[in-house]
C-alpha cells in the first residue's frame, strides 16, 4: 500500500485550515508545507511555534516556465514571456494558475510529500473542477496535457492523495464541508476524505450565576454544538484552540 504523498487541507474560511496543516506537518516532519497565502507565518507566531519548511509558489515563475515548455524555442518564448501583453494574457487566462499549481504539487510530491494549506470551499473545488473544465473545453494542446496528467494522478493513483476537511461546530461550516466532500467525490470518488472538527467547546466546571451576560455562551454553546454535530463522524477532534 502506497503512502499518501499529498494532503490537502480545506474547509470554510476561518475554520483553522492553516492551524490544522501545521498540525499535520508536525505529526510527520517528512512533509513539507505548501501555502498559497502568507497565513502560515502569523499562525506560527500566534502559537509560538517555529516555522516549518514551506514552499511559497511564485505564480509568475510557474506561468513563464509553462510558456517556455509549450513554445519550446527558447528565444521566442523568452521574448514572449517578457512581453507585457503576454504577461497580461497569462494573468488573465482563466484557471491557468490552478492547473499549474496542481501540476507543481503533484510532481514535487513524488520527491517530497506535501501538506497543502489549500483555499476555502469555492476556490478549493475550483482547483479540481479546473481539471475537468480543461478536459471538456480543450481537445489538445499543452493545457489539455496537464489536465490529463492531473486527471490520471487523482483517478488512477487515488491512494497518493488525502483531503482533510476542517469544520467548526457551526451550521454553515458543516454544510460547506459536506459540499466539498460531495463535489470532490463526484469528480474523484476514490480519493480518501477525512473530517476534522476544530474548536469544540465544553462547558466550564464552575456554574456561574444565571444573571451573568456570558452564561448562555458558556453553557448553551456546548449543548448547541453537540446537537449540530450529532450523527456526523470526525476522524480528528481538535481541542478548543487554546494552548494549555
Amino acid at each position, binding site marked *: 500500500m502506497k503512502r499518501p504523498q499529498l494532503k490537502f487541507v480545506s474547509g470554510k474560511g476561518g475554520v483553522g485550515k492553516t492551524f490544522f496543516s501545521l498540525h499535520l506537518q508536525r505529526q510527520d516532519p517528512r512533509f513539507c508545507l505548501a501555502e498559497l497565502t502568507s497565513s502560515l507565518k502569523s499562525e506560527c507566531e500566534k502559537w509560538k511555534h517555529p516555522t516549518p519548511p514551506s514552499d511559497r509558489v511564485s505564480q509568475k515563475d510557474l506561468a513563464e516556465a509553462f510558456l517556455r515548455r*509549450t513554445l519550446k524555442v527558447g528565444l521566442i518564448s523568452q521574448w514572449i514571456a517578457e512581453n507585457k501583453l503576454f504577461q497580461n494574457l497569462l494573468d488573465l487566462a482563466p484557471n491557468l494558475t490552478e492547473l499549474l499549481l496542481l501540476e507543481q504539487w503533484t510532481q514535487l510530491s513524488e520527491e517530497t510529500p506535501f501538506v497543502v494549506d489549500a483555499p476555502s470551499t469555492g476556490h478549493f473545488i475550483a482547483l479540481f473542477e479546473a481539471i475537468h473544465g480543461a478536459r471538456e473545453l480543450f481537445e489538445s494542446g499543452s493545457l489539455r496535457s496537464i489536465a490529463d496528467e492531473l486527471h490520471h494522478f487523482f483517478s488512477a493513483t487515488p491512494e497518493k492523495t488525502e483531503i482533510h476537511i476542517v469544520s467548526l461546530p457551526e451550521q454553515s461550516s458543516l454544510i460547506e464541508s459536506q459540499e466539498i466532500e460531495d463535489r470532490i467525490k463526484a469528480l474523484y470518488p476514490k480519493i480518501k476524505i477525512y473530517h476534522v472538527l476544530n474548536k469544540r467547546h465544553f462547558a466550564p466546571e464552575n456554574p456561574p450565576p444565571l444573571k451573568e451576560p456570558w452564561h448562555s455562551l458558556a453553557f448553551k454553546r456546548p449543548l448547541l454544538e453537540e446537537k449540530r454535530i450529532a450523527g456526523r463522524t470526525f476522524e480528528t477532534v481538535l481541542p478548543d484552540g487554546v494552548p494549555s
Partner: protein
Amino acid sequence: MMTSKTQRHFVWGRGGVGKSHVVLKLAQRQAQQGNVSVLTLDPSLRLLDLMNAVPTDFRTFEVLPLKPEALFEEFDRLAPAQPHLKTFYLQMVKSLQQFREYLQLIQLCRFISSSSAFSVIVDTPPFQESGGLMKSMESLHSFFHQTIVQWALKTSSNPLLQFGMKKMFELTRLFVGKRASQSVFDLLTWLTHHSESFRQATDHLKDLLTSDLSYHHLIVTPETPLDFVSKAMTYLDGAKHVEVIINRSCLEYPFPDHQDSFSREMHLQIELERKLREGISKAFPQVKVSSLSLQLMGDDSVEEMRQFLQS
C-alpha cells in the same frame, strides 16, 4: 468617472469572520435611508442561504447574485452570436471560476453605474481570494489599456488586421488545441462588438474602490493578525472611507478569572483584541475602529438573525 450617486459599500474580510452577517446588518441599516441592493461576489453564495434566516420584517433590501449567463443574453440581443458560441461561453462560465469572476466584475461596474438605488452593498469573496479579485481588476484594466488592444478593438472591422490577429491567435492552438482556439477567437471577435462597454466597465474598476462614494468595511475578529489589516490597507490604498469592524468583541463581558477552558479562551480573546486595537491605532490612526459584541451564534436560525440585526 461614474455618474451614479449611489453609495457603494464593500465588505471585506477573511473567511469565517462573520462577513455575510455584517453585510445583512449594514443593508438593513442603509435601507432606512433609501433603496438598497446587495450584490455578492462570493462564489460560495453563502449570503443567499443566509437570507432565508432574515426575518420577513427585516427584508427591506434586495439580494442579487451576479449571473454571467445573463450578460451573454444581454449582449446576444444587441449583436447575435453564432449558435456554437453560446455553448462555449456557458461551458467556460461553468468550469472556469476565474472567467466567471471577470464577467461578474464587469457586471458589477455596469450595475453600479446605472443604479438609482441609494446604496449598493458588495459582499466580496474571503480576503485571501480577494487578493485574486484585486489582481483581476488590475489585469482587466491594464489589458483594455494596452495600446495594441485598443488599436485592435478600434479597427476590428479591418479585414487585414482581422487576418493578422487570427494568425497571431493561432499560437494559442499550442495551448488549447485547434477547436478551442477557434472558439476563443470567435468569442473574442463577437465580444469586440461590445468592447466599448467592456472598456468603460474596466475604466470604472479603479474608481469603484477609491471614489468619494465608496465605503470600505473591513471585518476582523479578535484573532485576526495585524498583518492582515496591513495587507488589506495596501489593497485599499487610495480609498477615502475605510472602517475596521471588530466582530465578536469580548471586551464588554466581565468574564471570571477561572482556569477552565472557557475562561482561558475568553481571556485569550480579550488579550488578542486589545493588542489588535493597539496595533491598528498605532499603524493606522486615521482609520475608524468599531465593534460588534460576541453573541451566541452558529445555528443560522431566524431568531438568532433577529437578535444579531437588532444588536
